């Protein structure tokens, strides 16, 4: 359930996400951005499909926020997702640079990226997830 205080950010993200999905179709990149993400809040992208893993990147406001970045994976578009990867960025390192995450076994999976705000102050944020280019 989405707490009421997160609804504006989620709604804004949904607009961006919806626009991207409309352009790219299911399985294309998804991106999210917003303002005033409160401490403890979590926002997630939609799921994308990829057989080559994903590239995730994002940022929060410099020197005001720490964040936890999480990638989840599932076998289907709506099925249960399990956590595949997580990493934190601190108040100084405010960006998640372009990070490639690939499941250890081959397959066509669905991926979702999330950010949880861990800092003491509200922050602006960006978050994107894209299919990883085949190597």
């Amino acid at each position, binding site marked *: 359930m989405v707490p009421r205080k997160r609804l504006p950010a989620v709604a804004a993200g949904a607009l961006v996400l919806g626009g991207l999905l409309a352009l790219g179709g299911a399985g294309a990149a998804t991106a999210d951005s917003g303002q005033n993400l409160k401490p403890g809040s979590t926002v997630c992208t939609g799921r994308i499909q990829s057989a080559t893993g994903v590239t995730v990147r994002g940022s929060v406001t410099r020197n005001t926020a720490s964040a936890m970045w999480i990638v989840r994976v599932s076998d289907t578009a709506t099925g249960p997702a*399990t956590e595949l990867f*997580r990493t934190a960025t601190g108040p100084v*390192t405010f960006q998640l*640079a372009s*990070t*490639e995450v690939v*499941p250890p*076994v081959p397959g066509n999976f669905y991926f979702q990226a999330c950010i949880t705000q861990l800092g003491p102050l509200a922050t602006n944020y960006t978050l994107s997830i894209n299919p990883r280019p085949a190597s």
Partner: protein
Amino acid sequence: MFTHRKRLAAAAGALTLGAVLGLTGATPATAGDGRNISPGSTVCTDLVRSDRGIYIYGYATVATTASPIWSVRTSATAGGPETEILRLPTQEPISTNLSWSGTLFYRVCVVQATTVTARGVKIRVNVPPIGNPVYGVGPHTATLGAGGSFCGEFGVAQARATGTSTVPVRWTAPVQNGDGEHLRTIDLGTSTAVNRVLSLGADEIASVCVQNTATSTATLSFDLVAAG
């Protein structure tokens, strides 16, 4: 940056390490420590087997905003074909873990993709207890530029140190006690290969270090296993 808080954490980790080693004689984590890791170098831990993924922490400090890449590779068997499952550009992986249900071998590499030398590199890899971990499988490996050094492995009692390099490098075996205090350093010479049994006393733990004293890049590996 290696903050005071992290130094305390590192000290606490060393104490924990010593305590665990004293109780079990087993390697409690996979580790690698490097200095002066120049652009183009790559340093990799040995393998750890896990049923539930791994935790990673450490640092690769460079005086630039660019970051070395933390690369995690997996394989179904020790020494089998690998898949790179993570490329994370960062100077300090914090609270970083890869979760996967299924038995796999993991190794963690720091790829020095920046244009300046990394003064210090510390790699630590742990497995959650439910992951049925097996640490210390196979050798540490590195492609090490001139002047760089890299340490790893754990050995107790009678342990055989082996290593090979494409150019002559200096091999040593630092010895510490269970509290992480340095006791002595065994000189293993400068060569392209080393193969020597280390006789360690009670409460002594050895590792292997290699320093590239040549003027060209060294491609190398080293291991420390129980001498049978």
